[in-house]
């Protein structure tokens, strides 16, 4: 179990940093989708099965779709990528270095101080996701519904209604 977790974490870290450091938008988006997939696996391993499905389908699926559409709506990706060229390549190599350095320092500090947030609880509550979701989180469900309406309104506003300076 631990090995699976470490592998997933490694995947997420590598592709996450790659996504952040990448110059090209499409590559960033694809790397993000890979992070998402790795996270889905990780969640599955930890026992969050429904969340894992959501993560993989909605995030890696829908988010990528949004990006592709955004890119295609804005007539090709050349111009988009050209913008980040303004930042010299030399500078962008610092980002992975900083992140790896920060990670290493955190690791060492955590190891030296014996930092721990505890171990998994022995008694796992048998609560069903559906019950919890529809009862304990009913306010959240209501919020999601409203948020989706807001998203729909946003699409109407930004893609349908006319402009007015």
């Amino acid at each position, binding site marked *: 179990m631990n090995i699976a977790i470490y592998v997933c974490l490694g995947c997420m870290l590598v592709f996450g940093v790659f996504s952040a450091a990448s110059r090209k938008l499409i590559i960033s988006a694809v790397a993000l989708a890979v992070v998402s997939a790795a996270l889905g696996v990780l969640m599955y391993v930890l026992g969050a099965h429904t969340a894992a499905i959501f993560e993989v389908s909605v995030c890696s699926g829908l988010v990528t779709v949004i990006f592709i559409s955004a890119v295609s709506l804005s007539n090709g990706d050349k111009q988009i990528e050209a913008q980040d060229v303004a930042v010299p390549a030399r500078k962008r190599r610092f980002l992975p270095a900083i992140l790896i350095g920060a990670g290493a320092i955190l690791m060492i500090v955590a190891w030296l101080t014996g*930092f*721990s*947030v*505890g171990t998994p609880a022995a008694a796992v509550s048998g609560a069903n996701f559906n019950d919890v979701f*529809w*009862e*304990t*989180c*009913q*306010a*959240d*469900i*209501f*919020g*999601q519904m*409203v*948020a989706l*309406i*807001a*998203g729909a*309104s*946003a699409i*109407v*506003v*930004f893609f349908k*209604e*006319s*402009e*007015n*300076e």
Partner: protein
Amino acid sequence: MTVLQWIPHLFLALPMLALIVNNVIPRARIRTTTIAMSATVAGAQMLLALAGVFLLVESGESAVRFGMIWDAGKNVGYFQTDLVSMFLLMCVGMVALASALTALTTIDDHRGSYTNLLMVMMLGLNGMLLVRDLFSLYVFLEVTGLASFVMIGMYKSTRDLEGAFKYLALSALATIFILTGLSFLFIKAGSLAFDALTPALFSGAGDGSTLLCWAALVLLISGYSIKSGVAPFHSWLPDAYESADTAVSIMLSGIVTKIAGVYSLLTLTRLFDGIAPLKTVLALLGMFTILVGALLALAQKNFKRIAAYSSVSQMGYILLGFAAGTNLGILAGLLYLFSHSAAKSAFFTNAAALEKQLGTLNIDEMGGLQKRMPITSGSSVVALLSTAGVPPFAGFWSKLMVLLALWSAGLKGYAAFALIASILTGAYFLRLQKKVFFGKPNPRWDAVVEITGGIRVSEILLTIVTVAVGLVFPLLLLYLQRAGLI
């Protein structure tokens, strides 16, 4: 079920109903009708919440709990409303009413989504006030934010979109801060319900998860501060307010930042009562905010931008009230929030009137408009006096209460600072009044006439609220005292 138990349901049901009705009926032809409908919903909410406050006080209970429709039988109660949230629900109703009335004039025929978005925003704000779970609070915070982004960018002009985008980018950062904080708290507490979050979370010394809780507190304060526009997290705020349509600015300035940011901070102080650094940090942030907001307001030329920076500055006083930590302090902060909501909404309706009649908001181009627009001028003077804390307007009393709360909580230095900083408030508002309404009349505006319609109604309404609340304030205090709240 008593009336009191029914009222909270309506805060979620009414806007939702309005949303459905608005989208079932073909919108394009009946813009005014739909906006009037949203105004009705807002007004109803204001009156219901007002009634709710009194009913709640009279009933002697501390809170009312209720669930969603599909939970009708179990009666566990996932929402709750207490006096604080009931009072703030009333403020939401009042400001939304002012916004809708202004929108009758300012929103054009192609903005069919205004009503939808206003209702979504109201749902988000009401939701924030009704939940009793920090995560749900975040959900509705995000909903409110989403509605705000879209509303700011509604006209899709260059400036609108810029304001919206800046708000969104800062909000993204805030989302990261807040969610990280929440997940840290979740790791320690195992739940994010208000009942599970107590100051005891911070007591396990040396434990890794306690450290996470402290980190969570820092992250949450920063995140909510971004949402509330507290300096130095405020930079998005003037841009968003300036670019948005005035009806939207009223909402943003009058209530959104107050509920989304300040109410969340208040929730933090109420949950983690007794955590010393929390209050000190809030007080310091408040002081810094008062100063920076006032200084920046002094240098502005745009009417709405001055109002925006003034909002920033006034936010500091509310924070100072909460930082006092006592019951009196919280009450003072809430009353300050209310009087400031009324005054600032009035200011933005004035801005709408000026923009509509003059076509510009540059105060250098104005002058001597007092004769041409007496109602706008009068309303703006009342709002100025109230904000600057001149008796007998509502702002005076609430500022006095903030000062008293600080003084009695032993934060005398902060009280003195708040008092001195009031001079700056007076300074930038006097500068505004002098340039816009008094001073030498600009011949360019000889043909300008007073505004009519919804904006005028809104101006008069808010001015009446400011004056009336100021006049009955001593009675209000007596009432609160009788109810045992101060």
